[in-house]
């Protein structure tokens, strides 16, 4: 019995440790190539140069434009998905009848399961022309359309997971709030959402991660022009777009150009690492415990 418990715990432990091994493997793959990259390109240039043209005749290796592009599309996506997703979660939980929720949730989850290639073409062929009617100066490839569509795609990540978190808050808390004469809105945002905050933050982290790492939509609809800008109406390039572009393309493996994708990859990795640690810290600090 005791041995069995030990074995089970060991197996569970092993499963958890596998995640470290995966990370180690990823870091190893990224590092081994980027170390060679940084032996040829100074890290200062990499971080401060405002141009990214490693594949052109006049080479610049400044990652900033790609980072800006990534942040821009992600920001647009979150600006769309967070308010809508959270509203849906609260609405489903506090306002709508149970059966409605049970049908709507899976329906919305479909949004997350549509292949991103399809979204990309939707952004390019439907959303962009539509937005161009509103913003005539909008370029054919732009961060705005890609971001909006990406936002739509990640709505269910936020809405479903946040809804789960909210509905896990004990009923007695909701009763206490209603018993004090709270409206549904006050109950939701004054009591339920704060009590579920750790779950909600997790859902947003997952959504941001998904947005940062999303490839096909931005590759198709946001353009492939590295540009240091915060203007969402012009073509930009994200880190992921660059990586997929190079790995699908024609660059000889083993060359400096090829290693740029690992340098870009490790940047993305560091970037998400910082982001996750920040949200982790926030979560730790503000997490409310209840029984």
């Amino acid at each position, binding site marked *: 019995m005791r041995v069995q418990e030990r074995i089970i715990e060991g197996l569970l432990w092993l499963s958890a440790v596998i995640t470290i091994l995966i990370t180690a493997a990823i870091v190893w793959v990224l590092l081994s190539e980027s170390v060679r990259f940084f032996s040829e390109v100074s890290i200062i240039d990499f971080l401060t140069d405002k141009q990214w043209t490693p594949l052109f005749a006049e080479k610049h290796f400044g990652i900033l434009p790609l980072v800006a592009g990534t942040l821009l599309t992600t920001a647009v996506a979150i600006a769309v998905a967070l308010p809508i997703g959270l509203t849906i979660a609260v609405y489903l939980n506090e306002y709508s*009848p*149970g059966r409605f929720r049970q049908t709507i949730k899976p329906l919305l989850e479909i949004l997350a399961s549509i292949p991103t290639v399809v979204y990309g073409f939707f952004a390019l062929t439907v959303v962009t022309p539509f937005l161009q009617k509103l913003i005539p100066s909008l370029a054919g490839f732009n961060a705005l359309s890609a971001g909006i569509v990406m936002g739509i795609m990640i709505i269910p990540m936020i809405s479903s997971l946040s809804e789960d978190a909210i509905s896990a808050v*004990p009923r*007695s*808390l*909701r*009763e*206490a*709030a*209603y*018993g*004090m*004469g*709270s*409206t549904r809105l*006050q109950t939701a945002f*004054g*009591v339920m959402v*704060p*009590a579920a905050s750790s779950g909600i933050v997790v859902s947003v982290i997952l959504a941001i991660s998904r947005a940062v790492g999303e490839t096909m939509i931005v590759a198709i609809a946001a353009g492939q022009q590295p540009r240091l800008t915060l203007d969402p109406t012009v073509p930009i390039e994200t880190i992921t777009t660059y990586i997929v572009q190079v790995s699908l393309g024609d660059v000889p493996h083993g060359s400096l150009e090829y290693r740029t994708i690992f340098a870009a990859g490790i940047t993305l990795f560091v970037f998400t690492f910082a982001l996750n640690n920040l949200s982790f810290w926030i979560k730790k600090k503000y997490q*409310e*415990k*209840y*029984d």
Partner: protein
Amino acid sequence: MSKKNYKLEAKDLNAYYGSFHALKNINIAMEEKAVTAFIGPSGCGKSTFLRTLNRMNDYIEGFRVEGDILLDGRDIYAKDVRVDELRKEVGMVFQKPNPFPKTIFENVVYGLKIQGLKDKRVLAETAEKSLRQTALWDEVKDKLDKSALALSGGQQQRLCIARALAISPSVILMDEPTSALDPISTAKIEELIFKLKNDYTIVIVTHNMQQAGRVSDYTAFFYMGELVEFAKTRTMFTSPKHERTQNYITGRFG
């Protein structure tokens, strides 16, 4: 019509959880500024009835009410009644302590804040007053900004009572409010109930016969979803009309 000034009345009230008939044809009229106690064996419907009095059961799927409940003569289940205002009028304290996962202070002033009150001084004064009323002030005054969840069960329940008092409702419903309290706190709460009934109408569910005897003016005895007997507490405890009541009160039940 009734000559007396009834605060709360139930008329031909029936309540159902889905197909389960939880309250059967309840007729009762509760006097203003008096304490009415609900007693009866476990599962007889005391909590259910109490919760229909401020429509807390609205949120339970499948729950359904027939008949009328009148607060100051107005049907609380009427279309134009606002539940949130009803609940400010009819406060509630629950069986299990349910403080918000916020600070102690935030818990007490929650009701005021959601009404839009922002004046810091008023909030602080009300908080202190309510916490004193529930004999909690001395224990928590140094940790008002600590999480309410770190309090012991008894302290939590007293906090919930303070929270309900802070919005000064005219009716206070209490579902076994002292079942998680020690005798000292219980005594203080009972004292408080005594004081409060000068201004408030109080309905209390209790399992403690002594408590019912001590605090209530009227007692209602429920059994299997029916209101068996309703009378002045003294009358009921000394000369109950129904044998069942008698058996229950004296503990010879079952």
